[in-house]
């Protein structure tokens, strides 16, 4: 067990340094760390939401097909289906390559510590998240995740604005690790 078990003690373990006294009294502070840059071609969408690590993995053979993969926090039950809600052929009692890709990209995006803590899994020194999972395949509704992905994509279709949004003063752009 490596740094995953190190207790940062606050904010649900998002690996944030909020020991600063008076943090509760601050108005403008980034409380969720920004996603780290990663290549999006293979796994365009990853999120930690609704008690699951879930996302969308592009098919290697058909550009208009995607797989919807998810792993539940706590139970580690996992599932992988196509966007047409057919079961993934690679899922035979073990996590398929799409689930592995999902986990790998989640670690890139959020860091191992945050993903492991969210899923409630103890990862050994190898850092291999998927082998540390104890769950089994369980049916889940791929449509929910797929619609969250479509919603995610729809942001890119929204027009911009030059009328000021003063509420964004509460959301300072934070420095990413460079």
């Amino acid at each position, binding site marked *: 067990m490596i740094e995953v078990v190190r207790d940062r003690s606050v*904010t649900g373990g998002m690996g944030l340094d909020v020991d600063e006294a008076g943090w509760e*009294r601050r108005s403008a502070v980034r409380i969720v760390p920004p996603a780290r840059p990663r290549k*999006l*071609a293979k796994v365009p969408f990853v999120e930690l939401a609704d008690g699951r690590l879930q996302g969308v993995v592009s098919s290697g053979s058909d550009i208009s097909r995607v797989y919807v993969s998810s792993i539940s926090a706590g139970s580690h039950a996992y599932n992988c289906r196509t966007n047409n809600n057919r079961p993934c052929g690679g899922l035979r009692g073990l996590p398929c390559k799409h689930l592995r890709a999902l986990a790998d990209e989640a670690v890139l995006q959020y860091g191992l510590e945050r993903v492991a803590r969210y899923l409630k899994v103890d990862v050994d020194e190898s850092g291999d998240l998927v082998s540390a999972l104890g769950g089994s395949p369980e049916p889940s509704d791929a449509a929910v995740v797929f619609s969250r992905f479509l919603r995610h994509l729809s942001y890119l279709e929204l027009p911009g604005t030059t009328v000021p949004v003063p509420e964004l003063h509460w959301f300072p752009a934070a420095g990413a690790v460079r």
Partner: protein
Amino acid sequence: MLEIQLSELLGASPEGVEEALGLVAGFDDALVHGFARLDPERLEALEALAAALAVSPIGEAVAEAVEKLTAGSVTEEHLAVLAGGRAALLGAVHDALLHSLDAALGRDRDEWTRPPAPPVSDDLLGGCRAWLHELAITGWRGVGYDLVSSADRVIEALFAVPALRRPAVLLDGLASELRAFSPVGTAERLPVRRWADLWSRALLLAQAGGRACAAEPAEEVSGRLLVLGVDVHEHDTAVQIQVHAVLEPSGGARTRLVRASAAAAKVDTIAGPAVWRLLSDHPVLLGALAERRVLEISGMPLLAGGDLVWQDGQAAAGEPADPFTTARVMLTGALAPAVPPLERHPVRIAEPVLLEGYTVDGDGFRLGDRVLDVDFDRLPSCGPLTSELVKASSACVGLVRWDAGRWKAQPLAVQGTAKRKPFEAHTGDWALGPTDPKVVKAEARSGDSVAVLRERAGRLLRR
């Protein structure tokens, strides 16, 4: 900002600020545990808030709302009144702080004399109010996945109406933080002030008629716009650049401090220098930032709060202009804009200043025996400013801000000498793409996220 000015600012302690913030804290604590479970101590805190506002125009309404809460009734109307009371207190804190900053800087500020705006639309704001009502009853501690997800449809509907972009962006930012903390009950510490701020502002924006979302009246201005620097705001699904500048109106009227903003929707995986690509509809503005040029504008709408509503076609880039020179020569004497009533909150204080002749002392700039803390968390990843450069700097154009009882400097540009070589960096330097080869390479490694997601959207969204 001179030594004597900093000394005056840090030495001033505007009357009543601590007391007002104490009352706000009482309200914020009620939101942590939920208005459905107010114990005598929390009710007492709300009564204190009502008492403090008793002689104000909303005094009676606030007192009645607290009375009804004590009797166990939590309605949308009463919550809105309380949110208004909290906003009034923070508005007063804002005014006191800004006044002491203006006094220290010797800055003149315009008066707000505008009439209230006409209504925008009400249809969609009801859903917004209902969600905020549910949050308040539950309290942050009770928030879980279902309550967070129930905001999705409300937010989606708001985004469909351009006039409601403000509540949409705000609610989306709040929901995303609540989602990350869910189930919130297990988190040890909560951003108590922050979430109460976001909740209250959202509820005020969502009042029937949406007057709060309406654009202020505008005048049309022409002249030379001299850029001071770029402030960048960002959450998972939004990015906004706010350019601070001095406007030299044609015809010789008094110079004014203005801002020009551009915002775009985005997703969390588009971050760093890539965010500039989302703003490519404004090539003249971005070009002037990257090349540090003056902008000639003609017939550009200027809102009463000092915000230009940017129209790239009404602007042309002119000769090179050094923001440090602009700050040195033009900041003194320029008229600062009035602050629109609803925007009065300490978080909105962002006054451009020039700092020079300082030494870097720990995490702050020392001028004489006073140190102004630097907000190193506000150096955006879309630009070249790093904490190393700030620490090596000897001059800085920045914004003076205030949070949690402290004044801070947010650098927008720095100059200095490192390894016997002079350097200069501005947050807007990469507006046309990064100029640092290392960053260009890192960008190339992770690929063009915007293009990849647009391709996916094109293939999957319209089927």
